[in-house]
């Protein structure tokens, strides 16, 4: 009852005209930032950080928070329509979302992404309200062994990301791990795999790698195909063709529910970011699906689950931030800075000492989600029309988009060159029948895997039993073994079936 009263108080704060305006501004900028590759929410929030000096505290925080979850909505648009992930958390949406767009179902894909994000955002907010302090305490129990086991379990999901050979996925994942280690060692600060090239000292940025491997390689492949019109063949732009139909909803309900849970709980763990939960969600949906072989060809579950996950993870990030003052990712780290500038001390006492901030922020996340749905749905028809542009022009626009996005990261020509090289690598991978998804997953997990492995082994004086003696770590290891085991078993069953059929 007290929680409901507090929530009502929060709505009375966020529904004030000024807070509504700043909330709208935040989600609008977040959506734009999500669409544009190269400019992430962390960069946008840091650019707008000085506003905290000129705008009332709660209003500026509402705006900055709006950017973080608004970016999740925007990132899916280019992922689905152009195979260019706007954010790292939108990479996995490319796999099936883009295929749906190629089949003339870009509208339903965008629609389910928007609705799924809204539903997940709303449900996870309830979780935030009810469970924030208790869950934050549980998240703090994650140490290096738990992070390693989580990353290891996530890495075993490479088998579920592609239809083809598991060996090829593992091989390309190993390449992804090595690529992620290029640059400075975070523990010793020594350079490795740079071979004397200064631009490699900072390593590769995920946006550069993702744009190159997904966006540029797709464009290059399509350029090589004669007279091909990649844009939608015969989609309608009537309302009923644009939005998800009843069958889409039926297939998406459970993925959205599962995605919400995965995103919310994993989002609470500092350091996991938004991308890892989306890969886990995709793999889970493939595992639970009655037709896993169709994943990668344009199934709506492959969009609904991950899109729900990345929005739920956004809400999950606020739990350690507001309850304990621990940021979960770069965006929330900057938000923490904003809180401290304004004189708010995040922690268990924040709710009691500044209820207007906590409840106002929480309520604004709900109104922000409503605004995002209202903002994004009418745009679906516009986006679908956009991809009907002749591909000879569209491809050049996509390339230009990527080039500018890459350059805007660090205003460096080297980033542009690297992205083009990754585009070449991605193109060659396609020709040699290798999927980019395992590489990207391993690239994202690599730093966390290495840091936690080395820290764990140092803590345990070289004994690997540390991963088995801690309960949470043991659970993840067992899940990983179960996943690998079920893959091998499925492979053996398929083999036996093939032998049986041959004998008959």
């Amino acid at each position, binding site marked *: 009852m007290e929680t409901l009263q507090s929530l009502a108080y929060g709505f009375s704060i966020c529904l004030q005209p000024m807070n509504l305006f700043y909330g709208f501004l935040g989600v609008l900028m977040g959506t734009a930032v999500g669409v544009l590759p190269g400019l992430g929410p962390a960069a946008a929030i840091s650019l707008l950080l000085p506003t905290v000096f000129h705008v009332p505290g709660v209003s500026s925080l509402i705006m900055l928070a709006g950017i973080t979850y608004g970016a999740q909505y925007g990132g899916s648009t280019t992922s689905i329509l152009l195979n260019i992930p706007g954010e790292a958390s939108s990479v996995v949406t490319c796999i099936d979302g883009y295929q749906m767009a190629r089949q003339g179902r870009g509208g339903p894909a965008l629609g389910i992404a928007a609705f799924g994000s809204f539903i997940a955002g709303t449900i996870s907010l309830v979780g935030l309200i009810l469970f924030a302090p208790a869950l934050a305490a549980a998240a703090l129990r994650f140490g290096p062994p738990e992070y390693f086991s989580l990353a290891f379990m996530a890495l075993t999901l490479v088998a579920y990301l592609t239809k083809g050979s598991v*060996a090829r996925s593992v091989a390309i994942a190993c390449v992804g791990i090595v690529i992620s280690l290029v640059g400075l060692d975070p523990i010793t600060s020594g350079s490795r795999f740079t071979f004397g090239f200064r631009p490699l000292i900072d390593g590769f940025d995920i946006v550069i790698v993702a744009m190159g491997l997904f966006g540029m390689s797709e464009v290059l492949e399509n350029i090589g195909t004669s007279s091909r019109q990649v844009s939608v063949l015969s989609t309608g732009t009537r309302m009923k063709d644009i939005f998800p139909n009843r069958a889409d909803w039926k297939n998406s309900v459970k993925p959205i529910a599962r995605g919400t849970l995965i995103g919310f709980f994993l989002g609470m763990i500092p350091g996991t970011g938004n991308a890892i939960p989306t890969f886990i969600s995709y793999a889970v949906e493939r595992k639970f699906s009655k037709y896993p072989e169709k994943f990668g060809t344009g199934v709506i579950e492959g969009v609904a689950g991950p899109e729900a996950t990345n929005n739920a993870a956004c809400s999950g990030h606020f739990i350690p931030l507001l309850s304990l003052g621990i940021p979960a990712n770069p965006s929330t780290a900057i938000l923490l800075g904003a809180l401290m500038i304004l004189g708010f001390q995040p922690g268990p006492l924040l709710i009691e000492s500044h209820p207007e901030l906590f409840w106002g922020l929480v309520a604004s996340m709900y109104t922000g989600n409503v605004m995002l749905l209202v903002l994004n749905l009418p745009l679906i028809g516009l986006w679908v029309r956009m991809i009907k542009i002749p591909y000879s022009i569209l491809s*050049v626009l996509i390339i230009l988009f990527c080039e500018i996005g890459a350059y805007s990261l660090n205003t460096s020509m080297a980033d542009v060159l690297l992205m083009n090289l990754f585009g070449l690598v991605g*193109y060659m991978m396609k020709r040699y029948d290798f999927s980019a998804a395992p590489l990207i997953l391993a690239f994202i997990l690599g730093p966390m895997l290495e840091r936690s492995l080395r820290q764990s082994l140092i803590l345990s004086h070289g004994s690997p039993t540390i991963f088995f003696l801690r309960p949470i770590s043991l659970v993840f290891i067992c899940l990983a073994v179960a996943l690998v085991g079920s893959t091998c078993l499925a492979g053996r069953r398929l083999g036996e079936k093939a032998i049986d059929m041959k004998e008959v």
Partner: protein
Amino acid sequence: MHSRDLKSGFIFLIFSLLVFYESLRVGIGTLSKPGSGFLSFCAGMVLFGLSLMFIYRGWNVREARTIHSRRVILALAVLIVYSLVLDVLGFIVATFLAVAALFGVQTSRPWWAVLAISAFVTLLAYLVFGVLLHVFFPPGFLGI
């Protein structure tokens, strides 16, 4: 032609040897004090094993030749050159030339149409990103 498995196997083999070299150079450390090259060495070992498997699998297999479209090669060349001359020529000049080249590779429109569309696209990109979004673009030696 040799199979894709064989070719990719050799590429992975070379890559894994490179990984071994660099990992040992920076030091793999010990189990109780893992070095910079520890995880990369482990990944390299897995990759080495898989590369041998691909080579074995593809050794006696023959597949049709993989043909790369001339347009793709030209487009890649344009992009590589673009990224190298961007700072020198500046955003507007480099982008105009690159966009024109990419249009030229893909379409059979008259040259004046290609140049006109390229100029329009370059200007639009500059206005949206450079002016509206304040993305810094290199001015180049012409100062524009």
